């Protein structure tokens, strides 16, 4: 049986996987506005394709943060205070991106639009990169001391392994987003999105292989989890292969599903590799934060479990409903909400 703290680890993992699957594509669409959106109207079409969703997608992150705070206060405190400066950048990017979607359309001046468009592109690329870096450091380990305090040096956060991790996530989100864009548009825009996704498949596969190999040598997750992670690697590779196949067949719905699967498998692997640790200490395994020593009390977890189990079906229900409402493709005949 799962203990409650294990269950909450699983829930937080699900929230992060959900976040990267969902916000992953809107990050990708955000980046793609610079690559495939040639006119203002095309860029607007791309933004409209994620318009009804991106805010809800972001709530997955906010909920993951809130759940960490409530279920694993030490994890939340150690991680957030330890990653102070990267998080400042993450927050500034989230702030800029959020208002850019709302502000860009409010004036027709070219420079005004261009400024917000740049903010959308830069923040949409920066965010997955930084998240990739942070998750890579979680696997690699950080200098956490006996008081559960984390004082990382620059090289603890920025090193070849984490940079490759960041680039992998960014590229993965970009391809995922291009496929989403191709799903929700028609004509030229759809063609361009598919072509770009096709071109990026090989670089994506290359960097994911490099990252997997680095993970094998630079972290202990394969040693700790063994066959479970190998299964994930095989599944991930198969999904990626299928994504490439479906892109060639121009079946973007299937291809999108497959890149989504790659994202889900990649982040699920992170949590499988970590468990039962939530943060690995490079100063000795005695200092690891685990689901057991970082969690809240049993009562609190029980209350939260009841609340979450009651609410989640509704949340999933109306989120799926909103995707259903906006399932149709946007074409250039459409009235666009600015």
């Amino acid at each position, binding site marked *: 049986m799962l203990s409650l703290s294990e269950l909450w680890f699983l829930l937080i993992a699900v929230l992060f996987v959900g976040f990267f699957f969902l916000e992953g594509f809107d990050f990708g669409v955000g980046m793609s506005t610079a690559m495939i959106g040639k006119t203002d109207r095309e860029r607007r079409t791309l933004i409209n394709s994620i318009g009804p969703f991106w805010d809800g997608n972001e709530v997955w992150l906010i909920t993951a943060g809130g759940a960490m705070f409530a*279920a694993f206060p030490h994890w939340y405190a150690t991680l957030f205070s*330890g990653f102070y400066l990267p998080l400042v950048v993450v927050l500034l990017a989230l702030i800029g991106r959020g208002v850019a979607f*709302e502000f860009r359309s409010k004036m027709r001046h070219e420079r005004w639009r261009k400024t917000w468009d740049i903010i959308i592109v830069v923040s949409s690329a920066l965010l997955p990169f930084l998240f990739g870096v942070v998750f890579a450091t979680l696997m690699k380990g950080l200098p956490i001391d006996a008081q559960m305090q984390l004082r990382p040096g620059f090289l603890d956060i920025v090193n070849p392994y984490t940079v490759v991790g960041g680039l992998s996530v960014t590229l993965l989100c970009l391809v995922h987003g291009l496929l989403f864009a191709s799903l929700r548009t028609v004509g030229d825009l759809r063609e361009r999105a598919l072509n770009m996704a096709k071109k990026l498949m090989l670089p994506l596969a290359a960097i994911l292989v490099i990252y997997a190999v680095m993970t094998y040598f630079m972290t202990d997750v394969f040693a700790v989890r063994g066959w479970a992670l190998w299964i994930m690697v095989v599944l991930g590779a198969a999904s990626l292969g299928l994504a490439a196949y479906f892109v060639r067949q121009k079946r973007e719905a299937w291809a999108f599903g497959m890149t989504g699967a790659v994202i889900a498998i990649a982040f699920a692997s992170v949590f499988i590799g970590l468990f039962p640790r939530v943060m690995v200490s490079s100063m000795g395994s005695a200092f690891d934060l685990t689901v057991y020593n970082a969690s809240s*009390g049993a009562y*609190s977890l029980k209350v939260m479990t009841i609340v979450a189990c009651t609410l989640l079906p509704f949340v999933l229900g109306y989120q799926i409903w909103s995707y259903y*409402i906006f399932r149709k493709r946007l*074409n250039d005949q459409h*009235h666009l909400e600015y």
Partner: protein
Amino acid sequence: MDPIMLSRIQYALTTIFHFFFVPLSIGLVLLVAIMETLYVVKGKEVYKTMAKFWGKLFLINFAVGVVTGIFQEFQFGMNWSEYSRFVGDVFGAPLAIEALLAFFMESTFIGLWIFGWDRLSKKVHLACIWLVFIGTFLSALWILAANSFMQHPVGFEINNGRAEMNDFFALITNGQLLVEFPHTIFGALMTGAFVVTGISAYKLMKKQDVEIFRKSFNIAIIIGLVSSLGVAFSGHFQAQYLVETQPMKMAASEGTWTTTEDPAPWTVVAFVDPDKQENSGEIKIPGLLSYLSYSKFSGSVKGMKELQAEYEQTYGPGDYIPPVRTTFWSFRIMIAAGGLMILLAIYGTFLAMRRKLEGAGKWFMRLMVFAISLPFIANTSGWIMTEVGRQPWTVFGYMTTEAGVSPYVSAGQILFSTIAFTVTYAILGAVMVYLFVREIKAGPYAVEKPEEHDESADPFGVDGGYSVVTK
């Protein structure tokens, strides 16, 4: 500068800024929902135009509220990690529930509302905006449940040096929450109401789109009247609860150094001198403080010096007197702004009921435009009184603010982030005000114009090229 002071400054700046937008969002979304309801019930296009116009202002404001709110959640871990470790068990739960119950709802249904005008039936579309309102309302409820715990900790026990929840029901029926929530919600509704009446008054003075702004004024002024009275009454109960649970905050808000005579007079203004621990130049109303504290004209109120001695007995040596001048004056500013709003709302409602709005004196309309600032002043000073008045505690009686700070985040890092956020927020604020003014100047009928024509959309086609083509 030391990290504690910087973290405090950062917390104050970011929270105050965030709280400019939150009450306005709550207040505006209710008004938009009412207008759209009138549209659906009465079927008159004018109400749809109204809902869309105010909805546009709401969306600009909502965006800033949301993005600045993300930082609010993260900064507990970033700047106040020891606080987070100590209370995460209790304080984190309402935050997580807020996200699950309220944020998902707001964000999903706001998306459906913005992009769903053509795709949802009228009633479903209307339901979306009401769900957004309920979302903002629930969000306020849960965040205030968390805040109330800091003011008046209940439903927990201390285990291994951490606060652990042992009674969730106590947490959500916290007496503090029961007085704080209505006060804050009424304040939020009042904010929306005064922004809408103020803008409407401006447009009525200019005689632009008179029908729309007269209707908007009439709807908003009623909300303004109800909520401003609600604020006053709920504030009264909150003050009484304060006397019971946080007497030091009450004494500081009153500038009461020594225990008062019986009945206690209310100090209107005074020069507060925290160094000498005395006031000069006081103007007092006899008996009023007794009434505010106990609903009767008798009973004395304890002074800070006595309370300091009591607190030293209970909590050990230390300075338990909050910054008195700040607390004292923020309380008075809040009350003055609130009182002025009640008067304006009463007179405005009177004019609206008598259908004399357009004949109203220019002075009144000008005053209503100026009054846009009042709810923001009242909200801000109210929170300053609440949060500064609680010092030195962050969790009253259990953890001081100093003890809650992140131990290894350097002053340089906090300084950097404070500057970064201040600059970003200043830009956001300026852009928002600019966009607000633009939208107001453009007026409600600018909303309906299609944004622009693309060569590929045939302007001579059906619907001018904007027909919805499904594939």
